């Protein structure tokens, strides 16, 4: 059931963007900016790359995805709903009391969520543990982990990176959602993050730099990662925070802000017209 048609994948990604706006608008809470920047990555993974079956969300042999930047749950929930893990109607209860769709992903509440996340910096360690376990069990699973670029301020990311290299985890593919912005501003201004490629290269990763909104390029990058042996891969996905909504793009203010009715309507009109594609 892998979709290979680029336009079909772009259409799914566009639906995912609409869902994100809907979720955050209905909740009047959530993180649209970073959710919109990782939409294309998630769409390619769930619809083109990963060995998964929504009918068997806990299948032992499945590939796993950890959204380490857990605040971008609207994107993950939206992709999972599109993939058929649960009914799309549930999205409008995002962040509301009684909903399974908690502010940050909960693996025990939402089918398809492979790891609970939210406290930044922790997902990559869990991914390393999964990749190790898959090798120990000879399960043949690939482990994907989406990390935010602001998130790599956390020291634990570098601890995990060392172990990924030491254990030659070629079944681990880390995707850095490199949208250049974190809550308080530009990543290089906050903690002096620059030369991200050089940093991870020196930690032993196979590095692939890619336009994180180009479906075709993303597919190629994931395929290259699959063929890489003896070391983990990091795909540095150059992305745009708020991608797809003109007034949200590259705006730090849309990190964790919900649109009002007027903004919501404008966003949905833009997505209907696919202005950004």
């Amino acid at each position, binding site marked *: 059931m892998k979709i290979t048609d680029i336009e079909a994948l772009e259409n799914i990604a566009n639906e995912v963007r609409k869902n994100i706006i809907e979720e955050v608008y209905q909740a009047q809470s959530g993180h649209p900016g970073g959710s919109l920047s990782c939409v294309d990555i998630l769409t390619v993974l769930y619809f083109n790359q990963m060995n998964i079956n929504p009918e068997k969300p806990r299948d*032992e042999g499945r590939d796993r995805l950890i959204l380490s930047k857990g605040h971008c749950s609207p994107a993950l929930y939206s992709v999972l709903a599109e993939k058929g893990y649960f009914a799309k109607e549930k999205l409008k209860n995002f962040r509301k009391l009684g909903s399974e769709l908690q502010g940050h992903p909960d693996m*025990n509440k939402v089918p398809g969520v492979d790891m609970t996340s939210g*406290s930044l910096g922790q997902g990559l360690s869990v991914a390393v*543990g999964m990749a190790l*376990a898959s090798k120990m069990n000879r399960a043949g699973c690939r482990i994907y982990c989406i990390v935010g670029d602001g998130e790599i301020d956390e*020291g634990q990311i570098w601890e995990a990176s060392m172990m990924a290299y030491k254990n030659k985890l070629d079944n681990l593919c880390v995707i850095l959602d490199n949208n250049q912005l974190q809550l308080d501003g530009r990543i290089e201004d906050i903690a002096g993050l620059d030369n991200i490629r050089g940093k991870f290269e020196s930690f032993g990763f196979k590095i692939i730099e890619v336009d994180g909104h180009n479906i075709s390029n993303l597919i190629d990058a994931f395929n290259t990662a699959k063929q890489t042996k003896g070391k983990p891969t990091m795909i540095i996905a150059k992305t745009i925070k708020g991608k797809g909504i003109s007034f949200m793009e590259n705006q730090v203010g849309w990190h964790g802000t919900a649109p009002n009715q007027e903004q919501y309507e404008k966003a949905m009109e833009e997505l209907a017209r696919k202005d950004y594609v």
Partner: protein
Amino acid sequence: MDLDKKIATRQSYGEALAELGSRNENVVVLDADLSSATKTALFAKRYPERFINVGIAEQNMMGIAVGLSTFGKIPYVSTFAVFATGRAYDQIRNSIAYPKSNVKICATHAGVTVGEDGATHQMLEDLSLMRTLPNMKVMCTSDDIQTKWAVEEISKMNGPVYLRLCRLATPIIYDEKQKFEFGKGIQFGDGTDATIIATGVTVSEALKAQEILKKQGVQVRVVDIHTIKPIDEDIIVKCAKETKKIITVEDHSIIGGLGSAVCEVLAEKYPVNVQRLGIKDTFGKSGKAQELLNYFKIDAESIVEVVSKG
């Protein structure tokens, strides 16, 4: 109790873990560059393919253990109690306790009985920190036999467990035939003058105190609480009803540990006066373990004094 034969619970842990490894191939062990001190080296030697040394990176260790657990592994994670529950608290909270990950955190070198290393390495808040986490079960074992039972027992439970272990060699209290039950305290004697409730290294101190008091004509009972959470409410309430006073004694802060847990039970179920012996809202210090037990008034002599004062 054999006072001459002493063994530290960290040693019992290491031995039991190596044994468990032969019976359960899902058991994997993680350590943060302290395997010769935590005694996980005993496991590592026998099962190098199931031992992961992450280096001095406790936060990462917790996360890796979680990942392993999602594939059906049963990770035992070890380092000193201060680094396990202090440095990696958020990882334990958000990646282990909240998602109910099947990870066993077995931390050694708890309490002032670490000795000469001093305050930075003497963890006095671990029971408090772990007890407050939803989904977390908390144990603190008192001797070799009980520790070996616990190491196996927690492998059969699904979900997070914190097991507190110590560096100081302490007497072997139980014999091989002793039956233990998770969540059930063990009562020694049925004296009615006082109940001394202890856990971990202080259980043998309480038993020594019981002997001394007996010679003075004072009849006390001792309760070994190896499971701090869920705590055995029944035995605590029963002893409160049957004895004149309750004294708790622990090598841990009096805030949040055994003493607090006992008070919480009694305040709601059967209010009585409780005296808490433990570290009284201060950090530890360097010294010999036995000297420190006395300095912080949690040894047999101090217990006798408190009971005698009335």
